[in-house]
């Protein structure tokens, strides 16, 4: 049914809401990528089966939603209307949930989340500390809707912003609203979105394009993926509004094929939006035409760079070109093209609906609104968190993230993806926004946040990221292709105890040339992990080079594992777990011995020993 006006949309929305009983029990099973890995599909199937078995399938709804964010505790199940929060739910738990919680409103203690700081059990989603400190403007709806149901999106107010833009605002007013909101690109660069739109709008040319960049490829980052998987209509709505402001009638979603759920849900969303007349010709009877196509990428990291993405979209190898003439003027097929990242597009409907002034009220002077971070690494609560710009690293890592895993000490946090910088403890109170992160040598990037503890070697970290970038460099320009390779080689030899004192100066010299002379941002930002670790943890580099010692106990060539005899009762746990049979059992109550000829320094003994009887130095 094609909607012909804003009024028809509102009538449809009222009908959908009226048909839904807000008191009807609804079981939302998180079906984001993280929960899929935890086995949520089996949990959903178990709910459907159990409800049918108990004859409740008409009275209780089971909803498979997008990612809720608290991936650490998956599979997550939220039961509405009370918003009871169950975590680590297994299919075996399902009959009990239905019999007790659904039918008798009784909580199941073991499935509740325990706040590790207070030891208290928490019953409701909104009371979980991980969620409580967040401001989930963009990501919050993920848990409320089935991403494959446009009706669900209508029910929470979907496409009202589009109707407002088309019928109550001129395209200039829409542009002005986004400009005034202070929204900056969430893909990495932080370029003012409104200004980009304006350049594209004013660029000469009949045909213009808008593109949604869903090629997110940073190790450990998955917020764009989760948005596209969990709320594709929000992104689409943003794109239509943007296209209207710019005067574009064709759009592309460039999404990597490695994100099959994102591809599927985006495709379904496009079809549904077309069916309802929210995409295609004469949208909502406004006379405005706009269509979107999906283009699946092959998974090259560099294709997230706008010009490489456009080359790939054109069917050529994904290699960047110089941006001395902006893509907003000459982009896809040399036509004016506005490219924004998934999260940027997803911010647009809210800005249009609630206004630029409301949006400006959130965040810091130079960075407005919220930002979704993918909080990963050695932190207790890994997952996706959305916070207002300006929240400190400490609040994000300790209050939301629950601090460092295993009671260890915080050492550093790497923000902004592989070419971001590593930030040490002294900057934990740094308010996180575009400008502050740049000041300390890192960047916002797309919002990766990798937490590292005292057992993380900073040289090894730099080597890892350079290795990633070496593999992902397109190889077109000399500084990036050759420079990263040599930097990785130098870091590798430092990690292996073959570093020279002149290596540090050499790293700095190569870094300067990469930063200045690379063709695109992949090369020019690649030195960041090296430069920041060199700046903040120079002593660690020096320990590797001068003393042939890895202070964090990570670099295999420089460490050995030892048995602390007084502490070892000969329990044999390490003997059982050692993959190379390198630990010799000497009898009960006698300390074990390590056969260094067989030891591969994997650290398993260290990890399994509960008594701290294994030492690494």
């Amino acid at each position: 049914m094609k909607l012909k006006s804003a009024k028809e949309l509102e009538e449809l929305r009222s009908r959908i809401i009226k048909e839904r009983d807000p008191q009807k029990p609804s079981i939302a099973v998180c079906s984001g990528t993280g929960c899929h890995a935890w086995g949520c599909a089996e949990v959903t199937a178990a709910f459907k089966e159990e409800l049918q078995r108990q004859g409740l399938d008409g009275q209780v709804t089971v909803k498979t939603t997008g990612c809720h964010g608290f991936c650490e505790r998956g599979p997550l199940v939220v039961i509405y209307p009370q918003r009871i929060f169950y975590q680590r739910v297994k299919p075996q738990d399902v009959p009990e949930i239905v019999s007790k919680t659904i039918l008798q409103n009784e909580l199941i203690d073991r499935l509740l989340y325990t706040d590790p700081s207070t030891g208290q059990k928490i019953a409701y989603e909104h009371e979980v500390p991980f969620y409580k400190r967040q401001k989930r403007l963009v990501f919050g709806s993920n848990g409320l809707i089935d991403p494959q149901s446009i009706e669900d999106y209508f029910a929470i107010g979907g496409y009202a912003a589009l109707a407002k833009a088309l019928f109550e605002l001129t395209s200039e007013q829409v542009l002005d609203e986004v400009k005034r909101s202070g929204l900056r690109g969430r893909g990495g660069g932080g370029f003012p979105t409104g200004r980009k739109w304006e350049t594209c709008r004013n660029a000469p040319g009949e045909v213009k394009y808008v593109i949604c960049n869903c090629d997110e490829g940073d190790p450990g980052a998955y917020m764009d993926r989760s948005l596209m998987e969990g709320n594709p209509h929000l992104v689409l709505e943003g794109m239509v509004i943007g296209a209207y402001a710019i005067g574009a009638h064709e759009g592309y979603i460039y999404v990597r094929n490695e994100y099959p759920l994102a591809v599927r849900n985006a495709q379904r969303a496009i079809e549904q939006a077309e069916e309802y007349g929210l995409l295609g010709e004469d949208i909502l009877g406004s006379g405005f035409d706009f269509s979107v196509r999906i283009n699946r990428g092959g998974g090259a990291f560099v294709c997230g760079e706008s010009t490489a993405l456009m080359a790939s979209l054109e069917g050529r190898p994904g290699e960047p070109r110089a941006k001395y003439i902006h893509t907003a003027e000459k982009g896809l097929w040399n036509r004016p093209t506005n490219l924004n990242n998934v999260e940027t597009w997803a911010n647009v409907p809210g800005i249009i609906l609630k206004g630029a002034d409301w949006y400006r009220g959130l965040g810091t002077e130079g960075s407005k609104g919220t930002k979704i971070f993918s909080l990963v690494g050695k932190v207790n609560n890994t997952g996706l968190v959305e916070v207002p710009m300006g929240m400190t690293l400490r609040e994000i890592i300790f209050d939301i993230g629950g601090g460092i895993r295993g009671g260890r000490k915080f050492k550093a946090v790497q923000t902004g993806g592989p070419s971001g910088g590593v930030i040490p403890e002294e900057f934990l109170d740094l308010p996180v926004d575009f400008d502050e992160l740049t000041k300390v040598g890192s960047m916002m990037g797309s919002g990766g946040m990798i937490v590292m503890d005292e057992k993380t070697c900073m040289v090894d970290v730099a080597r890892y990221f350079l290795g990633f970038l070496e593999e992902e460099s397109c190889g077109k320009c000399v500084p990036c292709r050759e420079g990263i390779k040599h930097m990785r080689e130098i870091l590798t030899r430092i990690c292996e105890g073959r570093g020279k004192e002149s290596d540090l100066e050499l790293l700095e010299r190569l870094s300067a040339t990469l930063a200045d002379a690379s063709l695109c941002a992949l090369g020019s930002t690649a030195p960041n992990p090296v430069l920041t670790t060199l700046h903040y943890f120079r002593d660690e580099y020096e320990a590797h080079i001068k003393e042939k010692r890895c202070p964090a106990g990570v670099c295999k060539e420089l460490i050995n594992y030892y048995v602390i005899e007084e502490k070892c009762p000969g329990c044999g746990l390490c003997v059982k777990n050692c993959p190379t049979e390198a630990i010799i059992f000497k009898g009960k109550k006698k300390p074990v011995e390590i056969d260094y000829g067989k030891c591969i320094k994997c650290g398993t003994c260290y990890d399994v020993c509960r008594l701290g009887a294994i030492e690494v130095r």
Partner: protein
Amino acid sequence: MVTLRIDGQEVKAREGSTVLEAAQEAGIYIPALCHHESVSPYGACRLCSVEVLRGGRSRVVAACLYPVEEGLEVWTNTERIIEIRRTLMELLLARCPGVKAIQELARQLGVEKTELSQEAEDCILCALCVRVCEEVVGLSALSLVNRGTKRRVATPFFEEPGNCIGCGSCAYICPTGAISMEDVGDTRIIRRWGGEARFKLKKCKVCGYYFAPEIQLEYIRKKAGLPEDYFDVCPNCRE
């Protein structure tokens, strides 16, 4: 025409031209390895990096790609630029230590040796061969394959290129001599791509000189719509 300043010197340049072109016209030398006037600019070697000043802010750009604009201030030899070029030459020297052209340019820019680990390559991946074959010859018998450090110039499926006409443009344009060409009697041999390709040469009916590969002449003849016997005589004898 637009007016800009390069190293303090006022230079007039055609609108739409690049800083490198403007400098070359004005006789100001900027080193470059991946640039050639007969193909479109590419920006891979970065040796033509220069500093441009706009609104009081300095920025390093590739002169071969940066469009001239009115009032632009360009500096081609600042300390920062010299350092960049030296490091780039060091990187290229580490890749191709045995290539004369690289050694010479490196020496010219003040780089004698490098402490970086060395390879024994002779191709710097400037893609001039690929571009000339595509843009000038119109055949794309060559292409760049793979990514990053695995990148290389290759023929389709690493086999002898079926559509190569042996014109030798790639060998002619190659700045490092990685592609070589030799005419021996009635045969042209082009060496590269993991082997060699041989082409039968056409003999001039008048002077008896083997002047060009038969398939190249056939390609040109058909493209230009020339009579069948047009290339029976070499260009020298036709005059």
